[in-house]
């Protein structure tokens, strides 16, 4: 997976990696230019009126004030409005029928992600979205509690996730890389720690990854991971987390079936490595204040290590 290394993890609208974001960046630059022009003329006239001594000719004054202060800004704003509105139809047009469709729902404070892989078939994951490059993709967005907003700045605009409603967003990534998505609507204590990773990858890699996601987990290998699986169940983790292929079928928290292959944990707030995972499980609320997962402080070091070994094997 060498492409992971060249990812820049960008979160900038002005460094676009998709059609929507490229248009937004263009629009931003034109609006900036128009705004600066209006500002220069208005402030320039104001300065001119103060600095140039003596009386000003009334006719000229009138022309400058009305022309520079009202007519010119109106013309510039009208052109910018037309330019922006002309972009909308294409951004809103649904993608072709057979396009990749991904359901994402916002949950305080993480993301439930499900790829539609066939008629009534979905494969669930969380907090990480992988996309094939140069393909349109449609997101169907909803929320399980309060209003969230789904935004991948490098790829396109943002769309609110509203409880009881389904909103849509079409994106069309055109550059391979790793990007960051965020919740863009304040949703409570851990709102600022509600992010996700977006990996745009070559089509073949993407398909291989998606096939991998569809598989259930295999038996853990090694004594630590095997002990970890037992502990995972005994400590009640399975009441909240699903690991397909085991008895763990909880839906309160993120699906962990392929957790080991994710780049980050806790909705993209920490890199997914053993140290962070230990901290996450034993001191959950220090890592992410407000989080809806109880901290498992009572686990001893061995138990923690076993669970971590097990989770890291979930590829």
């Amino acid at each position, binding site marked *: 997976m060498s492409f992971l290394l060249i990812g820049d993890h960008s979160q900038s609208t002005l460094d676009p990696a998709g059609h929507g974001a490229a248009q937004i960046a263009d629009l931003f630059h034109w609006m900036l230019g128009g705004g600066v022009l209006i500002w220069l003329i208005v402030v320039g006239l104001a300065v001119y009126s103060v600095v140039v001594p003596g009386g000003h000719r009334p006719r000229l004054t009138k022309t400058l004030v009305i022309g520079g202060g009202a007519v010119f800004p*109106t013309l510039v704003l*009208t052109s910018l*409005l*037309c330019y922006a*509105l*002309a972009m*909308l*139809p294409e951004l*809103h*047009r*649904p993608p072709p029928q057979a396009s990749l469709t991904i359901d994402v729902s916002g949950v305080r404070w993480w993301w439930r992600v499900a790829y539609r892989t066939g008629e009534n078939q979905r494969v669930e994951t969380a907090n990480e979205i992988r996309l094939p490059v140069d393909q349109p993709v449609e997101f169907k967005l909803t929320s399980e509690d309060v209003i969230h907003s789904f935004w991948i700045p490098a790829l396109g605009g943002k769309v609110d996730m509203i409880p009881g409603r389904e909103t849509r967003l079409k994106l069309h990534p055109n550059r391979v890389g790793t990007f960051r998505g965020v919740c863009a609507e304040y949703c409570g204590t851990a709102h600022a720690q509600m992010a996700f990773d977006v990996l745009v990858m070559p089509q073949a890699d993407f398909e291989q990854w998606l096939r991998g996601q569809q598989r259930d987990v295999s038996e853990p290998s090694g004594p630590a991971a095997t002990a970890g699986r037992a502990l995972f169940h005994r400590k009640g983790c399975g009441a909240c987390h699903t690991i397909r292929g085991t008895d763990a079928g909880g839906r309160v928290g993120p699906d962990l079936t392929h957790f080991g292959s994710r780049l980050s944990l806790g909705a993209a707030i920490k890199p997914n490595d053993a140290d962070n995972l230990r901290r996450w499980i034993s001191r959950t609320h220090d890592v992410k204040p407000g989080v809806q997962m109880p901290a498992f402080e009572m686990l001893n070091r061995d138990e923690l290590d076993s669970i971590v070994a097990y989770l890291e094997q979930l590829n």
Partner: protein
Amino acid sequence: MAMTETSNHNEINKTDHVTSIWWIVAAPAVWAVHFLASYLTAAIFCAKFADSDGSAGEVQLAVMAYTVVAIVIIAGVGWSGRRRHRDGHDRSPHDGATTADLRRMIGLSTFLLSLLSAVATVFTALVFYFVETCH
């Protein structure tokens, strides 16, 4: 002000329909009605009558018609405002306590707000011109 023409007491206190303050809000009110009518038409059409491809050509036609009507009314209001502002030979500022100045002041406000309302109405209409579907 001293420069304003003389007026007798009766004239100052008389308010007729051309000095009514309501003239000022006429054009913005037309814009507001145009705005509401446009979006209500779109909302109702898209919820009840749109076909599967979501095209909204009928809405575009309706909004175009609303826009013509609105602009005609706003132009009328603006024109009458400007005429009242220009009445007589007096120079600004029109801040005398006379009916004549009140008339001119209301006329100017009416005229300027008509320009603003016309621009706002056109901006509203542009949205419907460019966005052709219910999506």
